[in-house]
């Protein structure tokens, strides 16, 4: 495996970005965005599915340009917060239109069938923003983050395993 595809972490007040070769713990990730001002937390868990277009998937492998991927995720987190912050936040009602914390954890290396490869958690005072931001962050990650997936199918040679593309 690539020496550039290593564990990495970036944490700010806005949230945390993590790349790890270890399993993802949903409980822990959710706890990392907990806040007594939050009424809502939306979570997305992407797992390795057992099939793709009729073929049996045996495993997925992920690699990353970790140094750049972590920066890209940090930018996505900052952009999500910015898109929910009013330009003139001078009333109390407006301050509720915001996000509290965002966590993005992505797994590297082999991810067996049924296990999570990505977990995103977004906390906010109200529910609508948490859903919208969670989906937004996921789409941005799939579009921009320098992580690559190789999908292995039953009955096919490992050397022929396909590198996927999200677009």
């Amino acid at each position: 495996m690539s020496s550039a595809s290593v564990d990495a972490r970036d944490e700010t007040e806005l949230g945390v970005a993590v790349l790890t070769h270890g399993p993802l713990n949903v409980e822990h990730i959710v706890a990392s965005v907990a806040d007594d001002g939050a009424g809502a937390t939306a979570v997305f868990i992407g797992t390795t599915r057992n099939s793709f277009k009729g073929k049996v998937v045996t495993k997925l492998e992920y690699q990353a340009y970790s140094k750049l991927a972590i920066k890209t995720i940090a930018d996505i987190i900052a952009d999500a917060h910015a898109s929910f912050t009013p330009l003139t936040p001078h009333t109390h009602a407006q301050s509720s239109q915001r996000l509290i914390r965002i966590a993005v954890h992505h797994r590297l290396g082999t991810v067996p069938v049924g296990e999570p490869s990505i977990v995103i958690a977004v906390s906010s005072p109200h529910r609508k923003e948490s859903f919208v931001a969670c989906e937004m962050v996921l789409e941005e990650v799939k579009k921009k983050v320098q992580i690559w997936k190789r999908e292995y199918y039953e009955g096919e040679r490992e050397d022929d395993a396909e590198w996927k593309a999200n677009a």
Partner: protein
Amino acid sequence: MSANTEITVLYFAGASTATGLTSERVRLPSSDPLPLSSLSELLVSLHPNNGLEDILRTCQWSVEAEMVEDTEGVMLKGGEEVAVIPPVSGG
């Protein structure tokens, strides 16, 4: 040969599979800065007939862990970490 007339090229996904490498020290052709837009040609000349040329057509580039939009405007002087960025598939 000073270390500064070499760059480090990182290969991921299909680019890594094509070259059989995850990284490579590449010597610049001369002491003049090399436009990033010319790096494809150089890499293909180092790795002929293995599909790298087709793969590079769909790839972007990063220099010093920053994505590059305009490859014409970036000059490689030596010492940089340059990554071939294939279409991503995380998430």
